[in-house]
């Protein structure tokens, strides 16, 4: 059983009222959430300090312009927050942030994490062609019913990690048929309880409807199987990789937006990856022709090796690819297989070490075998 707060307001109003209370009561000095920021109603993450500004906030809007885990890392990289700040993150954004914290790229100090049982997000394209607004009613219908909205990112459709692990407060969304009527906040931690403590509303002990969530999970698993089958067929051996990544233009947008890729200077942008004239001459003797700039597939394989263990399958890389390579689908599939090998779920627990960093003696024996 978990402590829960219920407000007799729709999800949309309830979360805003909660955030307003947090700012007005001074429990937090800032709220980090999605907000409409312009006349053309572009949606971006914002740090809000004035409660009046919450009128344009859209905390559960199904878009992820940037993986907010990356943003929280930027917020706390140089120095943790000294004053309390509430951050509303989607589960995979929170997991991304936790992975970054393990890599010493941020801290949870003075942060209150509010997450939700997530229905997934639209590809960013839908904001570009302005179709997101039109798709919203259908989206919320499927969220209520616990179904997979057809407009989601491919990796969202196939996501089984829609319940946040380490949030202080979890907002009940996916599969909750009553989100038009009530808002339910699960207060998972002492920090979460403290935040909600003096709020006007009904407090009770409540349990997630595990059965319902399991049913949703089954649907997601079926989608995942479809996705993996499809990408598995395409990714067949080095020829398959050449087919898939052949049109990569080397913009490295995928790595730039990845919540896990945090290197200031990527190995593949460093002098180590540059070919000297004699490198080229040698290569040309071997194979007659070489793509320039070289190293396209090597980059993707390298990135897979570097971050596969921590990939949270948020799908940012898919969205940002100018040539529509299904990067995220590949990284989700391969990432998961690496993670399974180490029985590791990225972002599940901030105390759990990243397997590639920790050393266990018996792993030696495994290699020998």
């Amino acid at each position, binding site marked *: 059983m978990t402590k829960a707060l219920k407000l007799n307001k729709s999800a949309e109003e309830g979360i805003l009222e909660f955030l307003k209370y947090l700012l007005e009561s001074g429990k937090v*000095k*800032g709220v*980090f959430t999605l*907000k409409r*920021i*312009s006349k*053309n109603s*572009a949606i971006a*993450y*914002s*740090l*809000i*300090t*004035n409660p*009046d*500004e919450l009128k344009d906030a859209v905390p559960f809007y199904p878009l992820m312009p*940037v993986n907010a885990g990356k943003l929280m890392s*930027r*917020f706390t*990289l*140089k*120095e*943790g*927050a*000294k*004053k309390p700040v509430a951050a509303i993150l989607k589960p995979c954004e929170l997991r991304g942030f936790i992975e970054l914290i393990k890599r010493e790229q941020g801290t949870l100090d003075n942060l209150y994490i509010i997450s939700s049982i997530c229905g997934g997000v639209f590809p*960013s394209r839908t*904001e*570009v062609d302005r179709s997101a607004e039109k798709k919203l009613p259908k989206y919320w219908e499927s969220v209520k019913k616990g179904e997979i909205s057809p407009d989601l990112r491919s990796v969202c459709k196939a996501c089984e990690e829609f319940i946040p692990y380490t949030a202080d407060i979890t907002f009940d969304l996916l599969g909750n048929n009553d989100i038009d009527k009530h808002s339910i906040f699960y207060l998972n931690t002492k920090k979460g309880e403290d935040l909600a403590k003096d709020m006007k509303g009904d407090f009770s002990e409540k349990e997630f409807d595990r059965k319902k969530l399991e049913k949703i999970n089954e649907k997601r698993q079926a989608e995942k199987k479809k996705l993996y089958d499809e990408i598995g067929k395409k990714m067949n051996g080095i*020829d398959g990789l050449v*087919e*898939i990544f*052949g*049109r990569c*233009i*080397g*913009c490295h*947008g995928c790595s*730039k*937006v990845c919540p896990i890729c945090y290197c*200031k*200077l990527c190995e593949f*942008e*460093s002098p180590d990856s540059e*070919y*000297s*004239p004699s490198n*080229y*001459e040698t290569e*040309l003797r071997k*194979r*007659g*022709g*070489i*793509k*320039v*700039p070289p190293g396209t597939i090597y980059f993707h394989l390298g990135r897979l090796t570097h971050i596969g263990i921590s990939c949270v399958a948020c799908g940012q890389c898919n969205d*940002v*690819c*100018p040539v529509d390579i299904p990067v995220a689908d590949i990284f989700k599939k391969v990432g998961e297989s690496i993670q399974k090998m180490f029985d590791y779920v990225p972002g599940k627990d901030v105390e759990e070490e990243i397997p590639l960093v920790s050393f266990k003696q018996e792993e030696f024996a495994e290699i020998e075998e």
Partner: protein
Amino acid sequence: MNELKGGIIPSKTGIRETIIDLIEKSVDKGIFDAVIIPMKVPSGDSFVYVLVKDKKLLKDGFPLAPTMLVQGAKAVSSVTRLGKGNMKIAAIIRPCEARATVELAKLGQADLDNVTIISIDCPGVLPTSDFLEDPDKYLKKFDDAYKNWDDKIMRPVCQICDKSSMVTGDLHIGTLGAKKDTCFIISNSEKGDSVAEKLDINLNQNLDSWNSKVKAISEEKKKKRIKAHKELKSTVSGLDNLVETFSQCINCHNCMRVCPVCICRLCYFDSDKVKHTAEDYLTRAESKGSMRFLPDTTLFQMGRMMHMSISCVSCGNCEDACSMDIPVGQIFSMIADETQALFDYVSGRSLDEPIPLVAYKKEELHQMEDAND
């Protein structure tokens, strides 16, 4: 500018074949050891630059590819940035790629000593997203448009390009104004002269019809360009409009990564200089009540404009790589025209012209003084 010299060569089977033929002959005669040329990828849905030595592979070369996925200047820089090497290389690229290559050479990012740049009259390129929708269909559409020099399906910046036949490399293949089954070959350097000589091409033939056609097209495009920039200016100028225009930017910096002249290994806007403490961010947010996070999206765009617009060649690669469809290429082409006009500079026009922000002239000091009066 000096009068260009050129000759006329037969081109019976189409311009792509003519160019491949020319290159093959040059390789046979030992003029070049390798060639940088666009090629179709194995899946057939894209074109990439390949450095080719093997003559058999050269047959798959695809000059005048319908799209520009990687800017050719980046390909040349990738091969020669660390030195000129021992190979004599021909680079078959478009005029804006040649211009960017010249800028990169001036910025110390390419060594052109052993490179012969061969450019081609350019009809423009297709927006990447259109092409990827149906590569075969769009290749055909491109070829049809090429025949009629119709730019309606090309990138927006290509539709207003007045330098699509600008000769800045060593050799240039001209198709405009050419009689049936022929094309022009124009030399712009001693290197170009020497290649022509070895291929027995007489460079003292009449280029009038090419010159007049190029002039007409370039003047027409210039008019279109001025008009388009004027219209664009009314929607993006002023801080409010700029912020609005870039409001959807997600900071992926794709525009910068694909830009041929953005050469910094670590961009200022990715450096520690733009990383602040949580307390600083919070203070800044408090001053406005709410702050976009990350902040400084528009500042990045303006910073990039200041850093590279003097060398911008209006290729439009930034716009094609933008995942949020911001017309960043059109905006940069507009700013670039103004920045370059200020210094009477045209990016990539000549290797001998120093980049104004690098060169120092004493009288500029007086201009500064005057401006402060």
